[in-house]
């Protein structure tokens, strides 16, 4: 049973992630009053990319992108997801926080060897942005961990069983809202798409990617969309023992997040950081203070 989870959960996560990617393009298009690509478009893209031949700049160029995806897949195993959590007793949320680093670091290393000036700029922006959203994110996670007095994600989910959802508890309401605000930043989508800004620095860290590199990066992106939202669901919406139910929660959160943020233009790097350090951080901090006060 446990062994099956190791295989099922990444595959399900991949499917959901790809689906959400397709969905997001669709919804964005609708908001922009376009028709938009079909839902399967990301899959089609992947197939196409994998069949292409491309260039490489050196071993780290390869290793970095593999590392990035491998880390993200491994991360799935630590996240409670529809009753599954293959590696529950291995460090909990703190490990999740750290393994989330694999993806950006791998991409950055890989891109670094690409030596394209756009990549340098992109990486720099990506890291700065991460510094920006990590402040509220850490505060949020800390609030949750302190509130439930555990560092295990599974325990957090358990504590919210029978609809004691954290989002609707007094202390964790504000952190939950803050999390929604920073989701786009964590995913690097509008209005926080400054790292990959295609029009400006030709996709930033991914500027030198083509073929399978781009494909792996896209898969990684799909995974991170899922992970980011799954974490929210686990921490604030009580997770779920049921995969379908879990998926629904993810879907709802994703769409809400998309709708809130679709209308914003792109931030400049400093603006983004300042924004992230201001509103979401203050909300999360307030939550943390309330948690401590209780």
């Amino acid at each position, binding site marked *: 049973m446990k062994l099956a989870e190791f295989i099922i959960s990444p595959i399900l996560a991949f499917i959901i992630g790809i689906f959400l990617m397709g969905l997001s393009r669709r919804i964005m298009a609708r908001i922009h009053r376009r028709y938009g690509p079909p839902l399967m478009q990301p899959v089609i893209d992947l197939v196409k990319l*994998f069949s292409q031949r491309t260039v490489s700049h050196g071993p780290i160029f390869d290793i970095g992108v593999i590392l990035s995806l491998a880390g993200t897949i491994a991360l799935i195993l630590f996240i409670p997801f529809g009753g599954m959590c293959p590696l529950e007793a291995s460090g909990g949320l703190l490990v999740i926080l750290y393994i989330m680093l694999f993806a950006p670091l791998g991409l950055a290393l890989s891109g670094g060897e690409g030596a394209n000036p756009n990549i340098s700029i992109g990486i720099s922006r990506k890291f700065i942005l991460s510094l920006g959203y990590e402040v509220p994110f850490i505060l949020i996670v800390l609030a949750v961990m302190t509130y439930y007095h555990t560092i295990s994600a599974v325990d957090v989910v358990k504590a919210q069983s029978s609809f004691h959802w954290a989002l609707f508890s007094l202390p964790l309401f504000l952190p939950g809202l803050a999390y929604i605000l920073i989701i786009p930043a964590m995913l690097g989508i509008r209005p926080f798409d400054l790292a990959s800004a295609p029009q400006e620095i030709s996709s930033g860290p991914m500027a030198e990617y083509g073929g399978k590199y781009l494909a792996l990066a896209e898969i990684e992106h799909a995974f991170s969309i899922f992970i980011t939202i799954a974490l929210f669901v686990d921490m604030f919406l009580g997770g779920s023992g049921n995969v379908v139910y879990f998926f629904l929660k993810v879907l709802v959160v994703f769409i809400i997040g998309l709708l809130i943020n679709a209308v914003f233009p792109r931030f400049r790097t400093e603006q983004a950081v300042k924004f992230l350090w201001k509103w979401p951080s203050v909300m999360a901090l307030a939550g943390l203070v309330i948690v401590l006060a209780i």
Partner: protein
Amino acid sequence: MSLEMLLVIAFGGAFLTYLLGKLSPVLRDILAVLLTLVILAIVALFYGRTGESSFMNFLGFNLSLRINTLSWLFAIAVATLGSLSTIFSLSYMKGKERLDFYYLMMLIVNASMLGIVFSGDLISFYVFWEIMSWGTFLLISYNRGPALAAGLKYIVMSIVGSTAYLLGMFSLYASYSTFNIADIASRISTASPGYLLSVLVLFSITFGIKNALVPLHTWLPDAHSEAPSPFSAVLSGILIKMGTYGFVISMYVLVGIKALSHLGHGILSFHFMLAILAAVTILVPTFIALMQDDAKRVLAWSSIAQVGYIILGIAIGTSLGFAGGMFHFLNHASFKALLFMAIGAVEYRTGTRDLNSLGGIIKKMPFTFMMTLIGALGLIGFPLTNGFVSKWLIYKTLILGKDPFLAFVALFGTWGTILYAYKILHNIFMGQLPEEYKGVEEAPFSMKFPMVILSIIIILFGILPGIPLKVINVIGVSLGFKSLAVNIWGIASDTGALNTINIFSAILVSWIVVWLIFKAAPTSLRVEQDNNYAAGSYVPTGRYLYTANFYAPVYRIIKPYVIDVVDIFYMALAGAVRTLCDWTRRMYTGELGSYVMYIMLFLAVLITMRLGFNIW
């Protein structure tokens, strides 16, 4: 083999090395390496031994050496780094001036650090401490130029520290009329909290200075960046940890965990204040490190920040925190030494460590890059490196101990760490290779070897943290902490366990999967760096680096906030003192009449005090 013999070998060998250097440089190098290896072997053989023996009588006091697991742990770190840095020196220092002196001082500092951790009383601790201080001063000054100011700053602060130590030591003596650590520890339980607090504060000044705790840190950035790289490795890796050792000794051995918990309460307790200082030590230096452009300076500031983690863990006073702090001390010793050595290797080959002018060296020094990468990952606390485990322990104890703000600072500091660690990687190794570095070569073997050893340690302790944690647990228990459920793969606990083997296997498996997918796709074509984006067009050969000023936006945000206020304050203080001193000597006007009047003044004061105020 007794402890005395070890110290005799260490000090005597140092002088022997110096004398041999006058005969033959080659023999000197061999002896130096051999000596450090012998010391390492002896210290390793000491494992598990405990005992205390008096070795000489100084001014009527018995000086004693003692060994227990705590001192063994520090000693093995000292001996390891000592031998590795000596090996690293072989080629790094080749052709520089005064090598005999350099090796002498390296070995003396090494020996004195062993003396510190093995000393069983406060006097011998002080003696070795001072020998270490002046030896370090001479080594820091070795590079001339700006190193001189750094050395002076270091030694002045060091003397301030030893002044505080002397006062603390003698106030203990005045109360207990013994200098033996164990004796004092056994008698101190009856002392009043106020007294203990004053002693602890005095000791904290001493150890805080060596340990570069924030308001006392200002010597470190200059000293670390200006010292020769192998010595920077020692300095950052182990020498500043002598302060950590001092903190452990003074807080948990001398005063003891029980008495410590009664020093104040809540946020105003001693250990909590220390933890807050440690948190500040993490936060501010991390961001100052981010703004540096000199690789060694980045690492220097980073050392301060990492030391903050160590002290944070130790100060919080739980068994998890203590284990985390102690483990982080080992880890920091390994990865920071590795990083300093790697930067040293780059500097050795390129002649610069300016982050804004380097770039693309990965093509020329892939091995060094890998080492730097491992070191940087350890520094970040990346899973599968040892830094992760220790930080995890610290975070966990902070979160569960209801100190989320400290935890936040620690975690946030880690994100700052990611930024500067990546900056080092990127600016030195990534990006374009400037024209002038087209000819650099890989580091020589004697540099590679210590780096390999250190990187193995980093990875090994990252995957199997139980090895050191078991030792640390023994120490913790001996100091009165609760025992931890240590396994070879981490820590088992009901509030969230750690299993590094799981993490390792998860990542390994996903790696293999992804790698298979990657291999299944069509193979890619290897091209030159600038072939793609420049599309074959002319690329200017001069400065075409986009690595300069790497995090410009964040600099703009944090610049007004991350100023080393303390350093500015100290510098202003030093300036004021100097002005005051200058004014003082204006008293000697050179005029004979005034001088005679000074004499009469003294007499008049005496007479007036007696006759006018009837004082005596």
